[in-house]
Structures are given as C-alpha cells and as structure tokens.
C-alpha cells in the first residue's frame, strides 16, 4: 500500500526529508518504507494509534534509535540535503541541530540554571559567565518559564511542577539553538492546564524552528499543527494539511481513526 500524499501541498523547502525509511528492532519491522518532507515553517504532527511506529520514526530523525542496540534504520534521511547517516555528519552535531523533548519530563537532577546551561557548555556555545547567563535567560524566556523561575535558578530542576519541568526541557533544547525540535508526546504526562501552556508555547516557537510533534490526541494535532501525517501499523498512511486530514481525508483508515472507529 502506498502513502497518500495530498497534492495541494505548497512547494516548501524541506528541512528534513526521509526517503524509504524502514526501522527494525531485531527482526521486527517497526517502520515500513516511510517517505516524508518536513517543512521548515510549520508544525508537523504525527498521529496514529499506540504502537503504530510514530515515536520510532521520530526518534530516527535525530538518530536516537542508535542508543537501542537492536535497532537498525534503512533508507535515507536528509537534513538540509545532507544525509544524517553519512560519516561526515557527526551524530553529536546532528543532535545539536535536531533537538528532542520526551514524553515524560526528564530534567537533569541539577539546578534550573545548570539544566539550561548543559547544552551550551558541552557545545562550547557561550564564552564566559555573562554570555552563558544571557543564553539561559533567553532560552527560559522563549520557553515562557523565565518569570516563574528567575528568582530560583539555583533550585533543582526536579523540584518544579510537571508542566514547568516540560517547559524546562523545551528551554533546554532551545538553548543549543537547534533548527528542528522533535517532541514525543510532550503533554501525555501533563494536566490540561499545563498542556494548554505547552501548546501555546509550540505556537510561539512555530516559524523559528521546524517542529515535529508526536501526539495521541487528535484535538492537539488539530490545534497546534499545520501538517499531519497519519501512521498505522508501521506505515505512513496519509500526509497532508492538518485541516484536510481532519475534514477531508482520502484514505478510509484515516477517516476511521479520526472519527474514533479505533485508536
């Protein structure tokens, strides 16, 4: 079965593009021949039922699957036209350019300040304390967390509430000035108010970074994204404008999923 790609998509620059990507865990094929272009100026949402492979595919975009010994990726994934698996592109550089926010907030057990400063320090992005302070403040401001934490930067990041922790993780990702931010169900561990704040934040970051978000919630995909890809059983079934996917899907399976027939 071939992926249905809507024909009315504008010709935009693809920040990342995947061609015939398959991901294996041992002998099991988790992702089967997915090809997709991820635009620079939009938020792209991956939706689909549990176990459909959307997170697996997301993780292959910054080679986080490398950390799983049995995982293997086939096909090509390009970042600005450069193969991310080519030996000339260091995985460290790749991950600095393609940041990631996880399902469960995972701040380091360090101070709020150290959490943000971690990336700039290891990549040598800031020279001296003043510059580092500036990066920390800028990142926290962009993540909408500055006003809440500016007086307690030395407190542990793990002492924040769940929603604040997740915004801290987003700020941490922003601090190394990435081009793409991958978000793997960033709100699934949060309450509705914290979720609304994160969604608001995604809206604000939209345009500055290419954002890819994996989500369980179709409403969330509809609210925050402009492009949606529907995954099912390891295949990408349909890809198009979010409004089209939700109001006018071409594939029957997409139709069934968004109307709640399964999922």
């Amino acid at each position, binding site marked *: 079965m071939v992926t249905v790609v809507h024909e009315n998509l504008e010709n935009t620059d693809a920040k990342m593009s995947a061609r015939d990507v398959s991901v294996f865990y041992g002998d099991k094929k988790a992702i089967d021949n997915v090809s997709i272009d991820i635009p620079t100026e939009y938020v792209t949402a991956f939706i689909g039922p549990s176990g459909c492979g959307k997170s697996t595919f997301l993780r292959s975009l*910054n080679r986080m699957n490398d950390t799983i010994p049995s995982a293997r990726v086939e096909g090509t994934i390009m970042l600005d036209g450069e193969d991310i698996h080519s030996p000339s592109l260091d995985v460290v550089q*790749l991950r600095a350019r393609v*940041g990631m926010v*996880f399902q469960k907030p995972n701040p*380091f*057990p360090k101070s709020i300040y150290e959490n943000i400063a971690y*990336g700039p320090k290891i990549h040598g992005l800031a020279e001296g304390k003043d510059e580092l302070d500036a990066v920390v403040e800028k990142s926290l401001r962009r993540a909408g967390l500055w006003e809440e934490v500016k007086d307690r930067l030395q407190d542990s990041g793990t002492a924040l509430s769940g929603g604040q922790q997740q915004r801290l993780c987003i700020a*941490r990702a922003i601090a190394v000035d990435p081009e793409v931010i991958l978000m793997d169900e960033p709100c699934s561990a949060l309450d509705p108010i914290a979720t609304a704040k994160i969604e608001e934040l995604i809206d604000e970051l939209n345009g500055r970074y290419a954002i890819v978000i994996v989500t369980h919630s179709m409403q969330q995909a509809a609210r925050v994204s402009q492009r949606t890809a529907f995954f099912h059983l390891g295949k990408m079934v349909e890809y198009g404008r979010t409004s089209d996917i939700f109001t006018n899907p071409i594939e029957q399976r997409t139709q069934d999923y968004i109307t709640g027939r399964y999922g």
Partner: protein
Amino acid sequence: MSLTILLLLALGLGLAGWLAARARAWTFRRASPDGRLASLPTYHAWYVALWIVLPVLIFIAAWGAIAPGLVTQSVLSSPAADQLPAFGFQRQTILNEARAVATGAAQGVFNPLAREFVEPYREAISRYNWIGIITTLLIAFLSGVYSFLRLKPDFAARNRVEKIVMAILLAASLVAILTTLGIFVSLVFETIRFFGMVSPIDFLFGTHWGPDPMANPDNPDASRYGAVPLFWGTLFIGAIIAMIVAIPLGLMSAVYLTQYANPRVRAWVKPALEILAGVPTVVYGYFAALTIAPAIRDFAISIGISNASSESALAAGLIMGVMIIPFVSSMADDSIAAVPQAMRDGSLAMGATTNETIRRVLIPAALPGIVAGIMLAISRAIGETMIVVMAASTAANLSANPLDRMTTVTVQIVKMLTGEGSFDHPATLSAFALGFVLFLVTLGLNFIALRVVKRFREAYE
C-alpha cells in the same frame, strides 16, 4: 534440654491459641447478621497466638539469664557449702565440676568435695526447671485468656496484629544497633584499662611500636607503645595504595560494563569480576607474598634500589586494591544502572557524547551508590589482615617508602591478642585500644561520607 521443652511448649500453646481464636472468630462471623467482622478470622487467630508466644519467649529469655544464678544460690545455701574454700577460683572450680556431673556433662570428679554438691545441684536444677515450666504455662494461660476474652465481632484484630508485627520488626533492627553498642562498650572498658597503664598521648603520638609481652606489666615502657607507625601503615596500605588501585579500576570497569559493553560481554565479565570478592583473603596473601612481592623486589633492584625487601607495603596494597575492586565496581555498576534511561536519553538528545553523559549526568546522579561502594571498600581494606601479614610483614615501620616493610593496626591486634602475654598485660590490652581507634576512624569516615553525599548528590527522584 529444658530450653527446648519450654520453646516447644510455647509454640504448641501458641498453635492451640491460634486454632481456638480462629474458631471463635468464625462463630462470631456466622452469628453476625451481614457475615462481616471488623477483621478477618485469621487476624483474630494471630492476635491470640502472638499474645501467647511473645510473653512466653520474653520470659524464657529472661529465665535463661537468671535461672543459673538462682540454682547456684540455692546450692550455696545447702549445708555442705560451709566446707567450701573461701578462695574464689578454687570454689568456682569445685562448683563447676559438681554442675557438670549433675547435668551429665561429666562422669566423675577430681575434687572429692565436689561430690557433696552433685545432689544439691541436681535437685536445684530440677526444681528450677519445674518452676520455669509452670511459670511458662501460667504466663501463656493468663495472656491467652486475656487476649481471647478481648475477641469480639467488632474487635480490630488486624490493627493490633500489625502493631505487634511492627514492634517485632523494630526489635529486629535494634539487634544490630545494640550489637554495635555492645562492641563499643566492651572496647571502651578495656581501652580505659589500657590507658590507665600507658598514657593516651604516648599511645596516639609515639612513633615507636614494640610492646614486649614478657616485660613487667606493672611498669610498662610507654615509649614502646607509640601507635603512629601502625596508623600510618594502615592508612598507607589500605587507604592510599589500595584505593589508588581500586577506585579508578573499579569505577572504570563499572562505566564500561554499564555503558559500553554489549550484553554478551557484560554477562561474562560482571560475574567474573564478582568472583574476585569471593576469593579468600589468605589466597590473595599467598599470591601477594609469593608472586607480587618478589617481583616488586626484583624490579626495584633492577632499577637500582638495592635495599628493597621481599616484603613491602606496595605488594600488600596492590593486591588489596585488586581484592576490593568488586566492592567499588559492583556498587557503582548498580547505582549507575539505576539512573533512569530518561536521563541518559535527555543528555544524548542534547548532542552530548556518551562520555559527557557519563561524567556530567550519570556519575553525579549515581554518586551516593558510588561513594557507598568506596566506603565499603575502604572499611574492608582497613580491616584486612591476612594479606598484610603475608606480604607486608608484622614489623612496625614509619616510612613513606612503599617498598619498605610495614604493618597495620589489625595485624598488631591479632599479634597482641595471640601473644604470650597474660590477659591483663598492657601489651594484650593495647589490642583493644587499637581496635577502639580503628572503630572510631571507620565510624568517622562513614559519617563524613554521608555528609559529602548529602551535599553533592543530584537526586533524580
């Protein structure tokens, strides 16, 4: 014999109480309109059983402690006691002989006077046995009846049982604490006796160690009791040389095993490493004395150090370091592996290398476990005796040269206690003072380590 009977009696009564209480609870349950009790019948049963068994056990323990005294007392009040010699030691020997015959532990007596006491002993023992058994029964009966009468349909037996169990658990943990306390107290008394003969200042700051167990105990030569060379030897071998070997090797192998090794390598290397911890220290001692020490001496001679001895602090320290690698590595391994995968992923996703992730995220988060492992290793190294005896000699020597002979506190404790001196000779008592200092030092080390961990740990929960 009588103790076994008492214990069996207690358990039997407990079982009877258990069954009776359960039956009673069931009748409540049948009688109650909705078939419910405040607690399940089993809890009623355990409540009564515990109420029977625990007081009895406490009584048996106390009885075991006081009964022999009561027996002796009653024997001494018998008419034959007037013939006993006044001298304590002789008196005790006669009584012991009589008791041994009375209980069947010995066949005959050497001292004819002891024969006079066999019968009073036999009589007293059997009398107090009966008193013990009857008191046991009485206690079991009274507390059994008391607890049984408290059973009612709305009686909260479960809460009571949980409270009793909690008290038992508390008592279990107190045993360890009280043992430590007991060790401490017994050390303190002997140490004070020793310091009555040799001043603490001479002991703690003197630099010559060579107690003579044959010297006149009333007028010890304080200049021979300077323990500084021993403290230095312990520190140098156990805490410096051994740790220089064990900490880096242990940590690095833990990091390799948790972060780099593939599962098949790990499955082999980790158990192999832990075998090291199971090798008896005597075997390490052989290896150190027969292989490592001569090799070190030959090497020293080959680079021009002519006075190298065949026993050296270096040999003992190196082997000790190898011996405690598993303590460092397996605690570090466990605590690094316990850091959530999310931390690792978070760091790697920032573009950190594995190396940076280990240094900046995993090790700080795993610090408490790592430090605990190192503390355990240091305690082991400081307490280690066999390797030092075999590879570093028993001669005290204050020197910073690792090729010299040296000895440690524990080695001297063994030497003093197994020496020919009488028990109240200062040379023998010095062993307790050494043990006391060792105890304080390890206690202090643990305390400091706890504070350090509290200050620097990065809690990921």
